[in-house]
């Protein structure tokens, strides 16, 4: 039993380290895409949830999770997609918020409290509510002129 627990910890660790293909500084654990890793009937089940309904990265994430499991020698595993409860930006961890900011993406939060990731000035201007990916809007800093992405509050 002890070895199974240890084994599951190793699997969790490996799966948690899978990165988002669109925002490679963020792991799927940081983003809250990874719900849980459990063993059901002796089989590893990785439960993930999509961020946006049409997020094109989900398929890639599923493949990357499988690859991570294969690297550990776990071949008989299920990657299960769940929709309930729906994902929201509140699932992004504090570590995730920190990583987003250091990557130059303003983390999600109230629209009036967005800060420029470069100079920390407030009140940036929104250029486009729909940015480079479904989860981001395009902003420009009113102080230093830096254009940047804001991870939309959802």
């Amino acid at each position: 039993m002890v070895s199974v627990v240890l084994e599951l910890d190793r699997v969790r660790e490996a799966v948690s380290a899978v990165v988002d293909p669109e925002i490679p500084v963020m792991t799927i654990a940081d983003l809250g895409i990874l719900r849980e890793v459990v063993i059901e009937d002796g089989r590893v089940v990785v439960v993930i949830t999509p961020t946006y309904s049409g997020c094109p990265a989900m398929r890639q994430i599923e493949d990357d999770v499988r690859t991570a499991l294969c690297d550990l020698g776990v071949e008989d595993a299920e990657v299960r997609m769940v929709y309930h409860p729906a994902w929201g930006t509140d699932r992004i961890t504090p570590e995730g918020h920190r990583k987003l900011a250091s990557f130059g993406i303003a983390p999600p939060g109230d629209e009036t409290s967005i800060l420029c990731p470069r100079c920390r000035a407030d009140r940036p201007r929104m250029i486009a509510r729909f940015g480079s990916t479904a989860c981001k809007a395009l902003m420009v800093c009113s102080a230093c002129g830096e254009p940047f992405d804001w991870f939309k509050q959802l």
Partner: protein
Amino acid sequence: MILAQRLGELISNAPELEIDIAIGNIALDHLGVARALYGHVAKLEGEGRDEDHYAMFRDEREFLNLLLVEQPNGDFAQTVVRQMLFDVYQLQLWEDLSTSKDRVLAGIAGKAMKEAAYHERFSAGWVVRLGDGTEESHTRTQGALDRLWQYTGEMFEGEQAVYQASWERRVKTVITEAGLVVPDDPYQRTGGRQGFHTEHLGHLLTEMQWMQRSHPGLQW
């Protein structure tokens, strides 16, 4: 699904880069919701079908979508008016379904509801900007509204009638803010939910389905 396909036609063809990206993102959201719903239906039916079956291997008469969403993109005014009329309706529908006893459906709806709020801000925002813009944009937007109004009554048939009053309130607020006139033509077309469509759906399906019809089971 059908609206996703319509909006997808505009990718690389929208009037501005930002609009292009917005429309692409909205199309993706609609497509994602359709995939999730088809996947859920496939499980409930339990006949071993997958999401592609419903999208690619049904004929026109088997599609029960609203006539509104199959209408052509027309000019940009028509695209955003169609979107606004639909977004306001969807917002309420998803909100309602997000408390469904079916937990999978509730999850899909919960997410779709948040996305629909973003869609509506885009579409209603543009209707106001165009209606309240130049003489040309005003005329075109009013024209689009007059043309599409006949497809709105269908949304509220049967059980969906509960959404009509609040839909009308919200839509009329947007139309008034845009300086446009609410059409008073009582003529309403219907039939989509029974599989009777306007001529546009057949053409759309031909383009959407031809690859799977010509090469069944083809994968990327």
